[in-house]
């Protein structure tokens, strides 16, 4: 689903991703781990078509810079830090509905299942929500689209333990033919969720191993 061959990305003279070659396939749930500055977020941004790069990167057979919109129709994304969006919650929901052709109810029912009664905050600007509320809404917006590729950059950082548990349940049961890449510092927390671990260190893949998922209960 994602083919990466000799991918390099540098900012000025600092090379953040170094000649990376790796494939990510449909059905895989990947933990992308590594310390700060390892290149995880840069890799995610390359996949989202937000960075220029050297080398070859192909997503569902398409180039993420040249066919960005076609690719992004199939990608759900949760950023590391919720952006300070000035739009209201309702505007944000409608924005997603219009761009992704997903019924609004899909998003709303997902927020409910994450413990967020979004109707109570529907006219509030997004940036005025609490950190946990923002994160739950962003997760609902990413999952509600039922994307083929799910990119989650530290999605549980602002969640309380209960919401974290519910999120992991959702991810566990997410469509089986999708590719999920979960960037996280907390390997312990996500080890039951993933079937492959990719550890990055200073822009290269230090560890890449398939793991047998320990199912809960």
């Amino acid at each position, binding site marked *: 689903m994602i083919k990466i061959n000799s991918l390099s990305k540098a900012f000025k003279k600092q090379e953040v991703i170094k000649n990376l070659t790796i494939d990510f396939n449909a059905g895989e749930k990947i933990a992308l781990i590594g310390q700060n500055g390892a290149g995880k977020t840069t890799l995610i*941004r390359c996949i*989202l078509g*937000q*960075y*220029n790069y050297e080398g070859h990167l192909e997503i569902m057979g398409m180039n993420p810079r040249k066919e*960005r*919109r*076609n690719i*992004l*129709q199939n*990608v759900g*994304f949760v*950023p590391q*830090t919720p*952006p*300070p*969006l*000035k*739009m209201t919650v309702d*505007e944000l929901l409608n*924005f*997603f509905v*219009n*761009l*992704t052709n997903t019924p609004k109810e899909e998003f709303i029912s997902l927020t409910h299942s994450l413990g967020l009664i979004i109707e109570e905050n529907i006219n509030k600007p997004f940036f005025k929500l609490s950190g946990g509320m923002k994160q739950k809404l*962003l997760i609902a917006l990413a999952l509600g689209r039922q994307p083929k590729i799910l990119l989650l950059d530290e999605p549980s950082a602002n969640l309380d333990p209960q919401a974290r548990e519910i999120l992991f349940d959702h991810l566990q049961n997410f469509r089986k033919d999708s590719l999920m890449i979960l960037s996280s510092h907390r390997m312990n927390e996500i080890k039951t969720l993933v079937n492959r671990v990719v550890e990055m260190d200073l822009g290269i893949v230090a560890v890449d191993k398939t793991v047998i998922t320990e199912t809960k209960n």
Partner: protein
Amino acid sequence: MNSGFKEILALDIRQNLRSKWFWAYSLVFGGFVAVMFAMGITESQIIGFVGLSRLMVTFMQVCMVILPIYVLISTVRSVVGDRESNVMEYILSLPVSFTGYFWGKFTSKFIVVYVPVFLALLGATLWGTITNIDVPWDLFALYSGLLAAMIFCFLGISMFISSYAHSQDLAVSSAFVLWLLLVAFLDLILMGVMLKFRVNPELIIGLGMLNPLQVFRTAVLVLFDPKLTVMGAASYYILDTVSRWAFIIFAIVYPVILGFVFGFIGNRHFNKSDIV
């Protein structure tokens, strides 16, 4: 496929309508027209300007002072600000094209800046009609066009700076320096330069015609000052060389082209660079 232009446009307009800045700005221009009526400015006369024409000329002089810097400062942060705050990373993780995003923002800013000043001008003419003051419709049409052209021009420049700047501080400083430079190259400074150094008139005309602020100022007065008494040196030379109607067409077309060229280059850079 939907480029996201309409969605970004609608979203940005709604956000602007909620901002206090927008309402303060609208109130300044609407209030200005109301105050001028209340003070009886339409009944006074200065250098041939009387009635609603007097009010409109004064209104346009105020626009020349406020609008360019307002457009520059309020818009120059839009791209670089979204980039710095990670709003862009999120919005552009959706199927929105870079071009749709850029021109959606551009168009929404144009609408929210132009509509209040246009409505103030329209309100003045309607009030003139109701109170039986002669309405100079030709002037109304010219000034509506000139305002649109000037706003479009400065928006293009502003979005250009915003897409190239690496930080909001740099963007705002660049916009301010540019504005100072354009103000410095208005009539007064040119006059001083001319007197002191006996500069070639063609150079004065060239500089005056390149400066969108000077073009706007000259065009605002062009129908009213046949003897060129209130104009500065650059305007005098320009209108001595070019016919009035040719200049009016130029004053509307040139800023629009300038704004479009800057917008186009800004968008091209935005499309080709790292967006976060």
